[in-house]
C-alpha cells in the first residue's frame, strides 16, 4: 500500500509541474496590458513603465516563470495587482468559503442521489426507475446558474424568506453555520450547486446497483433463501464504493466548477475570486487561484484513487 501511495505521489509531480506551466502561460494569452486595470485612465508612459517595473512585468517571460515557480514552491504566489494582498491569503480564504458550500452540497447530493439511484437500480424497468432516471438526466442538463436566478426570484424577491446574495450579515469572516441568520445564506447556493451532482450520483448509483445485482454472489444469496430486503441491503452496500469514488471526483469538480453559481449568489468563494480576477486581469491571482484549484482537484483524484485501492485490492495495479 505504501508503495502505491509513493508511486502515485511521484507520478503527480510532473503533472503538477505541467499544470503550473499551463497556469503561467494561460495569462499571457491575454490581450492588452496586465496592469491596465490599476492604471488610471490617463496614465502616462512613464507611469506605466514605473509600475511595470514594480511588479516585475518588464522582465523576460522565462525569467518571470522561473521566479514565479521558485516563489510558488515556497508557498508564495505573489501579490494581487488589484488589492495588493498576498495571493496565497486571497485564494486560501476564498477556498475556505467554497469548501463551506461544497461540504454541504456534496453530502446532500450524495444522500439524494444515492437514494434515487438505489430505487431506480432496485426496480429496473418500472415507472419508478423511469421517473428517477428522467430526473437524473434533467439534473445534469440544467444550467444551474439559471436555477439560481429563478430561486432568487422566488425566495428572495417574491417571498422574501431567504437572502439573495453574499455570505452572512457580517461577511464571511464572521460567518457561523450555527447562527440561523448566517446559515440561511447557505440554503439557495447549496441547493443550486447540488443539482448536477445529484443527477450524476443518481446515474452512477443506478448503474452500480444494476451491476452488483447481476453478480454471482447475489444469485448465491438468493439461492440460499435470503429475503429480498436483506439482498437489497447487500447490494446497496456493495454498490457504495464506486459511487463514493464518483462523489470524491464531484467534490474536486465543484471546487473549481462553482464559478457560475458563486457569481449568481456573489458567494465570496474561489470561483467568484477567479471571475473577478479575469475581469480585472489580475494575473497573480488568476495564476495562483487556477493552480491551487487544479492542485485541489489533483489531490481529490489522488485520494479517491488511493481509497479505491485500499478498498478493492484488484485495483492495485500501476
Amino acid at each position: 500500500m505504501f508503495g502505491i501511495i509513493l508511486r502515485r505521489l511521484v507520478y503527480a509531480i510532473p503533472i503538477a509541474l505541467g499544470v503550473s506551466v499551463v497556469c503561467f502561460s494561460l495569462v499571457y494569452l491575454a490581450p492588452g496590458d496586465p496592469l491596465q486595470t490599476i492604471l488610471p485612465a490617463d496614465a502616462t508612459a512613464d507611469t506605466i513603465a514605473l509600475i511595470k517595473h514594480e511588479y516585475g512585468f518588464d522582465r523576460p517571460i522565462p525569467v518571470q516563470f522561473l521566479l514565479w515557480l521558485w516563489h510558488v514552491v515556497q508557498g508564495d504566489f505573489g501579490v494581487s495587482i488589484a488589492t495588493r494582498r498576498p495571493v496565497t491569503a486571497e485564494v486560501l480564504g476564498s477556498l475556505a468559503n467554497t469548501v463551506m458550500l461544497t461540504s454541504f452540497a456534496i453530502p446532500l447530493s450524495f444522500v439524494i442521489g444515492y437514494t434515487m439511484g438505489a430505487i431506480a437500480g432496485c426496480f429496473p424497468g418500472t415507472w419508478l426507475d423511469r421517473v428517477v432516471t428522467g430526473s437524473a438526466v434533467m439534473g445534469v442538463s440544467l444550467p444551474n446558474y439559471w436555477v439560481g436566478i429563478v430561486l432568487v426570484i422566488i425566495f428572495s424577491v417574491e417571498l422574501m424568506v431567504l437572502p439573495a446574495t453574499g455570505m452572512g450579515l457580517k461577511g464571511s469572516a464572521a460567518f457561523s453555520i450555527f447562527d440561523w441568520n448566517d446559515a440561511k445564506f447557505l440554503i439557495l447556493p447549496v441547493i443550486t450547486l447540488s443539482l448536477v451532482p445529484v443527477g450524476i450520483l443518481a446515474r452512477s448509483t443506478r448503474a452500480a446497483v444494476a451491476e452488483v445485482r447481476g453478480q454471482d454472489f447475489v444469485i448465491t444469496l438468493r439461492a440460499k433463501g435470503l429475503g429480498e430486503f436483506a439482498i437489497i441491503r447487500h447490494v446497496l452496500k456493495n454498490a457504495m464504493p464506486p459511487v463514493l469514488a464518483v462523489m470524491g471526483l464531484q467534490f474536486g469538480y465543484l471546487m473549481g466548477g462553482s464559478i457560475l453559481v458563486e457569481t449568481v449568489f456573489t458567494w465570496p468563494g474561489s470561483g467568484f475570486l477567479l471571475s473577478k480576477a479575469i475581469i480585472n486581469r489580475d494575473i497573480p491571482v488568476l495564476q495562483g487561484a487556477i493552480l491551487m484549484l487544479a492542485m485541489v482537484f489533483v489531490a481529490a483524484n489522488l485520494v479517491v484513487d488511493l481509497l479505491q485501492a485500499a478498498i478493492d485490492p484488484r485495483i492495485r495495479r500501476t
Partner: protein
Amino acid sequence: MSTTVAGMPDSNLWPTETTQETQVRGYWGSVLRRLGRDKATLIFGLVLLLIVGVAVFAPLVAPFDPYKESIAGRLKPFGWRGHLLGTDELGRDLLTRLIYGARSSLLTGTVPVLIATIIGGSLGVIAGFGGRRVNTVIMRTMDVFYAFPSVLLAVAISGAMGGGMLNGMIALSMVFTPAMCRIAETTTSQVRSLDFIEAARATGAGTFMIIRHHVLGNVLGPVFIYASSLVSVSILLGSGLSFLGLGVKPPEADWGLMLSTVRQSLYVNPIICALPGAAIFITSVCFNLVSDGIRGAMDVRL
C-alpha cells in the same frame, strides 16, 4: 456539469468488427431495430431534429428581424402585437431571438466536440499505436489538462483570451480533447493487442492500412458515443461562458447571453428571464437522452 468525463472504457469492448460485410450490416441492423423500439429516444430525437431544423432555417422560420429594436415595444408580454413570446429589453422579438440563439448554442455544443474528437481522437490513436515514448509524451500532456476541472479550464482559457465566441469554442475544444484522447488511446491499445491485428500484420498489411481498416472501425464507436454525450456538456458550458460575458458578444443572439442581459429586467417581465434558460435546458436534455438511447442501442459501455 461534467457528466461523464470520469468515464473510461473498460474491458467490455465494442463488438469487434470483422472484415465480413454481412456481420457489420447485422450489427447496425440490430442497433436500428433497438432504436426503433425505444420510444423515448425517438421522441426526443424528433424534438432535437426540430430544434436543429429551426436553427438551420432560422431566417425562414423566424417571424421577425432578430436585431430590429423598438423602444415603444420593450419587455412586452406574450402575444403582444404578433410577438408570440413577447419582446426583450430592446423590444426585439423574443421568439426570433430564441430561434437565432439556437444557432450559436448548437454551434458551441457541436463544433468544440467535433474539433476535440478529431484532434483528441487522432492523438489517441497515435498514442495507442505509436511506441512507448510517443504514448508517454501524448498521454502525460493530456494528464496535465485532465488536472483541471472542466469548468475551470474553460473559464480560464476563454477568460485569458478575452472572451468571444471563437475563443470560447477554442477553450471548450481544449477542455474536451484530453478525454477524447484517453478514450481513443484505451480502445486503440486494446484493439492493437487483439488477434486479428496480429493476423493482419502477418499477412503483410502496413501500419497505416491496419489503422485505417481495423483500428478506426473499432475506435470510432466508443468515441462517437462519448462525443455525443459531451454535446450537452458543451452547450451548458458554452452558455455559461456567455452568461459570464466570456462567450458570444452582443448583439448576437445567444441563450446564455440573453439570460444575462434580460436579468436586469427581471422585475418587469420575469418570464422572459425564464425562457432562454428553458431553451438551454430542453436542448441539453434532448442531447443527453438521445445520446443515452444510442449508447443503449449500440450496447457500448463507457
